[in-house]
Each structure stands twice: as C-alpha cells, then as structure tokens.
C-alpha cells in the first residue's frame, strides 16, 4: 500500500457502457424525465445484501467492465451479469463480495452471460447528485459515462463482511416473461394477442438503456389502420410496436410518453430478466391477470427482503488470495485513516 488513502474508486480503463446507477430519479415524469436508474435493480439489492448495507449507487457495466483501483481499503460486491474478474491477477468469483485493499487492482473483463454486470462498494458510490439521484441518464443528458482517469467518491463504509457469496437464480439467458395487458392491448387483433403467447422471440442486437428490440418468429405485429395513437404515459416494461412490426420492450431510460401502441407490459418482477437477456437469447411472453401479477410482485418483494439471509461464506482455498487471511474479515473498515480529507 502506498500513498494517502482517498475514499474513491480510481478508474484506469472503462468499457463504453459503464455508468454510475442507483434506483433512479422518480418524480419527474410530468417534466418529461423518466426514472432511469439501474437496468437490473435486483443486482443492486443483491449487492446491498452482500455488503450488509442499504441499496447504494454502483457501476453498471454493459458488455465489458474495466480496470479499477481502490483509493483506500474497500469492500466490493460483484453482482448482476457474471463477468470475468480478478484482483491483482487472482481470479475472484462473481455474485460475491471481496476485500479490495488500497492500491489493489480490480480487472473486470467481458460478460460470461447476461448483459449488465454491477460493481458495488461498501459505503456506495457518491458522485454529485443531479435532481436527487446520482445515476447517469444519458438519454436525458444527465451525467456522463465513466471514463479512464475518473476518481469516483465512495461513501463512508460502516464495515461488514467480505468473502461472502449469494447464490442467484439464472436470469441471464432469456426465458419466460410475465406480462399484463397495457393501455392499447385491446387495439391489437385477437390473433396477435394469442401469438404473443405462442411465438418465440429473439432478443435483437439492437438494445440500449432505453429498451431492447425483440424479434418474433413468423409474422410481424401491428395495429390495423395506422400505428399512431395520442401520446400516453410509458411504463418501463411496455412492449411498444413501431412501424417495422418488431416489438420493443421499453426499459429504464424510456421516454415518458409515446404515441406507438403497446401490446402488453412486462411485470416489474421480470424486468431484471428482460434487461439481462443477451443478444440472441430466446424470450417468451405469457399474459397473467392483474391478480397474479400483484401476487408475483408480493413474492418478488419478499424475495428481496430475504436476500441477506441467503448470503453465505465464500469457501475458497486460502492460497487463492494470499492477502485474505491478513485482512479484516469483519468490520473495522471505518477507522481513522479514512477521515483524512
């Protein structure tokens, strides 16, 4: 360890789609600003459980990570889509939290599955707040992507465990998505509503934080007699059908209102699965009643509450991480040396 400790994460290299993300910025719909925030909010909750803290802002890494250095002793959690990761050259598992001592270098490579990986830190990332949140909303021109040379401030860490893991279900390879009827579902012919449930869809390469295109097998979708309806509210998860007949599932940075008809809405509990579906993944949609959707929401929230109880020790060979045993496994990260600026 060299130099003075600064509570910051130093960025030596970052992929093109690395941004700081939190739970987003609700409350500005009337002004045309959508909530934004992490594409996979479950990944933020998983990181919070691993680090034993409240939900905090993290680095969201689309496609590829980067090379990062700890400006002081940090605890980190790696969640969301699994990516190849190493600390000072030694591979470390994903869906886990680790110690990242001051000066240690964390290398995060390409995705192994899914679409968005998350790097969280004990104390959270605390860059400048914009309209009550720190998340970048690039579509709206709020904030910017993370770049080499950035030093991202880290909040005070009250301390907690490292070398823990959190077993997670696979949500990184597409699969079944539950939908409820949307504002304009009934404008679509019965045949198309039925086909939404039977057709297989492929997640297209065209995707960003606004949403993902899903290409149906067979005939395109569309509403007879024109596609334009009066602009109405967009809800994340809305499946919008534009001119080319391929549905687009709108996500975190969607516009607030839109004039294209929407076929259905993916329920919030399944948004992490659609956000994490990689290009080429197969997706299926199935209607559920509002009653079933609300039961799914209750179950989803219960599972979030249960996350801390599912954290378990990361059993590993001590030789893998020589520093580990010399490191404080529990607590002790908020000592005096962190108050030096």
């Amino acid at each position, binding site marked *: 360890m060299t130099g003075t400790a600064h509570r910051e994460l130093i960025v030596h290299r970052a992929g093109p789609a690395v941004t700081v993300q939190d739970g987003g910025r609700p409350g500005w719909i*009337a002004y045309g600003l959508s909530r934004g925030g992490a594409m996979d909010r479950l990944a933020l909750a998983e990181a919070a459980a691993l680090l034993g803290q409240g939900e905090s802002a993290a680095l969201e890494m689309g496609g590829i990570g980067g090379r990062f250095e700890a400006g002081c002793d940090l605890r980190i959690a790696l969640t969301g889509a699994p990516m190849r990761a190493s600390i000072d050259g030694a591979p470390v598992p994903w869906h886990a939290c680790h110690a990242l001592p001051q000066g240690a270098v964390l290398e995060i490579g390409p995705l192994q599955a899914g679409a968005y990986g998350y790097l969280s830190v004990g104390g959270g990332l605390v860059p400048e707040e914009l309209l009550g949140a720190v998340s970048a909303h690039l579509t709206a*021109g709020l904030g910017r992507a993370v770049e080499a040379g950035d030093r991202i401030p880290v909040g005070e860490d009250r301390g907690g465990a490292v070398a823990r893991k959190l077993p997670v279900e696979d949500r990184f390879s597409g699969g079944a998505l539950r939908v*409820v009827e949307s504002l304009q579902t*009934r404008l679509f012919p019965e045949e198309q509503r039925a086909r939404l449930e039977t057709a297989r869809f492929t997640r297209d390469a065209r995707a960003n934080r606004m949403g993902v295109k899903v290409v149906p097998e067979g005939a395109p979708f569309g509403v007879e007699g024109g596609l334009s309806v*009066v602009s109405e509210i967009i809800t994340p998860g809305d499946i919008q059908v534009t001119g080319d007949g391929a549905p687009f599932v709108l996500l975190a940075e969607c516009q*607030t209102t839109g004039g294209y008809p929407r076929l259905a809405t993916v329920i*919030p509990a399944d948004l992490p699965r659609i956000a994490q579906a990689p290009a080429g993944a197969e997706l299926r949609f199935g209607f559920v009643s509002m009653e079933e959707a609300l039961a799914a*929401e209750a179950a989803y929230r219960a599972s979030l509450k249960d996350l801390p109880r599912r954290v378990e020790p990361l059993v590993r060979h001590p030789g893998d991480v020589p520093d580990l045993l010399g490191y404080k496994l529990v607590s002790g990260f908020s000592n005096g040396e962190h108050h030096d600026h």
Partner: protein
Amino acid sequence: MPVAAARDCANVRRMTDTYSYPLLRTAGIDGMLVSFGDRLGEAANRAALAFRAALERESWDGVEEISSSLVSAYLRFDPLALSHATLEARLRGLIASRDWLRAELPHGRRLHRIPTVYGGSLAPQLGEAAQAAGMSEAEAVASLSAARVRVTALGFAPGQPYLGELPEAWNIPRQQALTPRVPQGALVLAIRQFVIFSVTAPTGWRHVGQTAAPLFRLGAERPFLLAPGDEVEFPQVSEEVFAKMCDDPEGGATWEALP
C-alpha cells in the same frame, strides 16, 4: 386482489373499444390513467390538468407520483399498499364528481414570455410554414408572436414542451422529410402546435423561430422552466437583441404568475 376487482379491470378495458370518456385504464401493475379524449383538444387537455390538480389535492396514501400528459392524468402507486379496487373506486368517484371537460385550469400556473427571432438564417423555415398557412412572412410573424399558447405536455426530452393550440390557419402537416438537425432552442411548428427543442435533434416539424431560454437548468430552484398548464408567448426580437440574450442565463425569458 378480490376477483370482483379483477373483473372490474376487464370492464375498464372493454371501454377502450367503445371509446367512452373519461376512460380509466391500468398502466402496468402500479399505474392508473384517466383519459379525457382520444385526440388532443383544448378541453381534454384542460380536463387532464384540472384532474391532475385534484389528485394532488386529494394526496391519497400509497400514491407515489402524479402527472398529466396531452389528454390524460396519470397516477403511480404502490399496489401492495393501496389496492387496485380501492384506488379505482376513488378515481371513479372523483371522475363522477363533476364534468371535467368544463373544469377551470388549476391555480399556480405561470405566463412566460420567451423572446424569439422569427425567420432569417436562425429559423430558416418560417417562409415555408407561412406559405403552408396561406400567409405572408410578416402576417405569420404577427400571428405567431401574438399567440398565447398553453404547455399541454412535456416529453420526448426533459423539459421539452408541447404548446397549443395555435390559430386554425396553423393546422399544417409535418413535412415529408425530416430536418436532420435543429439546434437547441429551436421553435418548431406543426398541426397547430409549437415545440421548443431542449436538445439538438432531427424533426419533421418546421423551424420557424429561435429562442435562447434554457428549458432545463441543473441546480436551479425550479430546474424545469415550464410546467404543464403554464402559458407562453413568443414576442419577436431582432437578431441583434437575440445575440445579447444568449449571454443572459435566463435567455431573455420572463414570467409572471397567472391568477
């Protein structure tokens, strides 16, 4: 949720087919939308604004966000804290409490004056738009700079307003081809509406004026200049005056409270 409520939701949807307004629909699992028409009109927009203001006064527990768009008021809520059945009953009660198409506009609105250069190199499509409206350029400027329009909705980009309605002569269509780029602050026109572009963007609307007022300012007490329901006038200024306004943080814009 009780089965009866689920059946009610189905009833709500069937109304969509018959276009009976006001129309109550769910938006996702945590939103409800009350619409006052299926196309933009002054009365439907006024009803949406008035209904939104009424929702704000009610401030029901479990409601997390309220907004309005062109013809609808939207309410986002926690469906596990406030049941669909309860909220739907309250909304139906509020809908039935009066004729919203005859409601007055809510209080607390502002009248903004945003100085504008019409035509010339800063707004090259004034002539084209005037021709489409059957006016000379001078008549067009007189008409547009005297018009008082309402912020019917904000969207597409943060703080970007839709403003209407202009006099009937301005019911001109969007152009066939997109203009690849209009600059930030461009005042564009189509179908009796203005839009001010808050970012540089392509558009099918005609660029008739140029403004300098920032629509979105971080750190300001009110970060967005315009709110739904506000009224706006676009008085004409010369290019010389406009050049000076560009150095003004307000871009020359002024406002007063409406009664």
